[in-house]
């Protein structure tokens, strides 16, 4: 297949066919010219009998190869059926066109598909001609994945390239209709991973997709369309899909939560988790069903996770208690400040500076919550105290604004009284003048 290359397959497709089959758009010519192929005048004379024949009997099937090739990335770049399946697309007779002697492979077996695709996709020199930015290590990664390992063991159930990318109507990963577009990935993985019979054969649960969709990450990606939110491949990898190891899970989360991971790595919990063989983040936050963390998770209360490991009276218990108290102090002061500043703003006062202080306090609260992962009250308390000062400053400014508002009202009434007295005096004077 590699030997045919773009130059040869271009020769096999006629301009007449391009007109008749609309899935060969204008970029075809651009690609052809770019790779130095023969001018279109030569190509006009070459038919593609694969498309001609298959199109005739696939018209009734919308998902058939010739019906979906219009949006196929390979077809758009000028690749023909024969470039993957071999054979002679210039031959009018079926026997000659699909002659194994002419390299006809036909439909590869499921377990052959990764290798089938890798003939081109693992070949940097060839791929560079079409898409220099596309990696060529997918096959190598796939072989290291759970899917790759199992298929090598002869497991026919596992995912191959076409399970996720489709076979003929393949779309780029940035195409919103692609199964591997960010927001579609959980659904694509769920095609197999929610199949109870299939998963049961491999001893795997089927709740991951449901859990993920209820998680803070799933809500962001699936319901808010935030493509920066992590999906299955963000943590498990795409072609190299596998379970993260116990130690590696922290690194997986650190892709986004870098500071949290650094704090954890310097904390006393790091050594303890390693010693006990506990996964880092997962112990408290779970895996697929990760919920928005709450302050109740910290401390020694009934919902506090700290108390599940640290007994009352232990240093860890005391640290958890102090960290929670510092955060609660800041929250209480911040709530007071927000109430005061909002009231002042509702009264029409300019509280821009107080609002700035509120924002600073809110930022410190967020920072303090992150610094919980230092698991050190000495590290967290100064941050919370700084937020406390901003909140107190905001509250004081809001209170001053409310006081100023009251002063303005009282001052206005006093001024109006003087103006009224002046007006009455003038009116009496006018009456006196004109009596």
């Amino acid at each position, binding site marked *: 297949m590699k030997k045919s290359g773009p130059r040869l397959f271009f020769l096999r497709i006629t301009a007449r066919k391009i007109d008749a089959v609309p899935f060969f758009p204008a970029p075809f010519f651009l690609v052809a010219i770019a790779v130095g192929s023969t001018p279109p005048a030569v190509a006009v004379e070459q038919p593609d009998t694969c498309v001609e024949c298959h199109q005739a009997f696939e018209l009734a099937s919308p998902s058939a190869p010739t019906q979906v090739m219009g949006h196929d990335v390979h077809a758009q770049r000028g690749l023909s059926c024969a470039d993957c399946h071999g054979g002679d697309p210039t031959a009018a007779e079926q026997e000659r066109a699909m002659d194994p002697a002419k390299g006809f492979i036909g439909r590869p077996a499921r377990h052959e598909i990764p290798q089938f695709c890798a003939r081109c996709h693992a070949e940097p020199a060839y791929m560079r001609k079409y898409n220099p930015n596309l990696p060529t290590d997918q096959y190598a990664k796939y072989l290291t994945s759970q899917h790759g390992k199992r298929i090598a063991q002869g497991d026919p159930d596992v995912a191959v390239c076409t399970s996720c990318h489709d076979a003929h109507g393949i779309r780029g990963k940035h195409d919103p209709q692609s199964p591997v577009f960010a927001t579609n990935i959980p659904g694509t993985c769920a095609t197999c991973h929610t199949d109870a019979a299939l998963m049961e054969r491999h001893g795997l649960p089927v709740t991951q997709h449901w859990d993920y969709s209820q998680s803070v990450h799933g809500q962001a990606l699936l319901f808010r369309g935030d493509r920066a939110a992590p999906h299955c491949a963000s943590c498990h990898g795409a072609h190299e899909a596998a379970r993260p190891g116990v130690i590696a899970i922290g690194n997986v989360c650190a892709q986004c939560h870098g500071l949290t991971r650094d704090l954890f790595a310097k904390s006393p919990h790091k050594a303890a988790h390693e010693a006990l063989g506990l996964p880092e983040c997962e112990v408290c936050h779970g895996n697929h069903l990760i919920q928005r963390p709450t302050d109740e998770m910290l401390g020694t209360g009934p919902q506090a996770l700290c108390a599940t490991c640290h007994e009352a009276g232990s240093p860890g218990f005391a640290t958890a208690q102090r960290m929670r108290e510092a955060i609660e102090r800041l929250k209480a002061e911040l709530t007071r400040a927000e109430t005061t500043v909002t009231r002042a703003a509702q009264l029409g006062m300019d509280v821009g500076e107080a609002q700035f202080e509120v924002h600073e306090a809110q930022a410190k609260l967020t920072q303090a919550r992150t610094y919980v992962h230092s698991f050190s009250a000495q590290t967290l308390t100064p941050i919370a105290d700084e937020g406390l000062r901003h909140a107190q400053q905001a509250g004081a400014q809001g209170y001053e604004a409310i006081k100023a508002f009251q002063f303005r009202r009282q001052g*206005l009434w006093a001024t109006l009284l003087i103006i009224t007295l002046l007006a009455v005096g003038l009116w009496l004077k*006018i009456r006196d*003048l004109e009596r």
Partner: protein
Amino acid sequence: MERLGLPAAPPPPPERREATKGAAQAGRLGAFFRQRYPLGGLADLLAHKTVPVHRHTVWYYWGGVTLALIGIQLASGVLLLLYYRPSADGAFESIRFIMTRVEFGWLVRSVHAWAANLVILSAMIHLASTFFLKAYRPPRELTWVSGVLLFFLLMGFGFTGYLLPWNTLAFFATKVGTEIAGTVPGIGPILRTFLCGGSDVGDATLSRFFWLHIAVLPAGLLVLAGLHVLMIQLQGMSRPLSSMGERSTPPPAASAGGGSAHSAGPFGPAAGGGAMPFFPNFFLRDLLAWSLMLGLVLCLSVYWPATLGEKADPFAPTPAGIQPEWYFLWMFQTLKLFPGHVLGIEGELVAIGLTGLAGVVLLVVPWLDRPARHGRSSWLVRLLGIAGLAYVAGMTGVALWLGAHH
């Protein structure tokens, strides 16, 4: 007294002696000035100036109210100048500083903002009342012209002052306003470049608007307002045609009051076609109206203080629903209503042309209203005036409604 053989008058009580002493000092001060300057004519003018009294007398006060509001604007504007910085980097921050850190800065800015609106409203009322009372009849044509020019100047104050806080609304409203100015046939591009100080609204525009707002327009205002008031003092106030037939009563003595002709309340006209002395009778009424207006400005400033909004970001997209100040809304709405092309001419140009023509017509009304020149009232002119007023009010109302339901 002693020479006449009459007993000497008893010495006045101490407080009476103080009052007499004060009057004597004031008299001496007056004499000081009269010996040096020919103020006798002005004193005579004030002493003998009268104001017609009829059922429309109440409209006379709006000129004074407008003048008082201009005074408030000058005073509050001078105070704002102490802290205001006319640059894109500092304007917004300086206004915020005035509103939050300067003692009573919030009040000064709110008074300036509210009085800016009220002075336009007051000038509109004054202009409309003058139009319908046909006060522009000969020989007062130039008084009318100076008044209309003053009105345009006040609108110029509003347009230039609106940008000075450099907030989002002001920035984009000015952008729209200068773009409209740029479409004026012939001089449009030059006018826009002159106003903006470049190709678009920016730091140079703020400097130019500031220069116009505190130097050029005030100079023009002082000259025109001085002329306007001087012409009124020289010619006296016009008596409307409708009160010409009213029974004439002699003007009351300046010191003794005006008799029954104007005794129905402080602003009441009472019956009859008499007159009242300008000083002190009418002047005291003016003072009363000014006091009430001051009270209104203070109430509005305290209960609905001027807000500042967000600082202008020239690179941000134009926010939806941007509108100019309320007194420009009728023009803005007219521009929006016009179709793309009218008789092959661009609709916007037609709208701008018609608005400009309306301004010119307003300016030359004394010469267009020929019946009024001959002392007759014309129902057609009155009808056109009512139609014009209704159009302005209607378009303003539509624009406000659309803005509120955006």
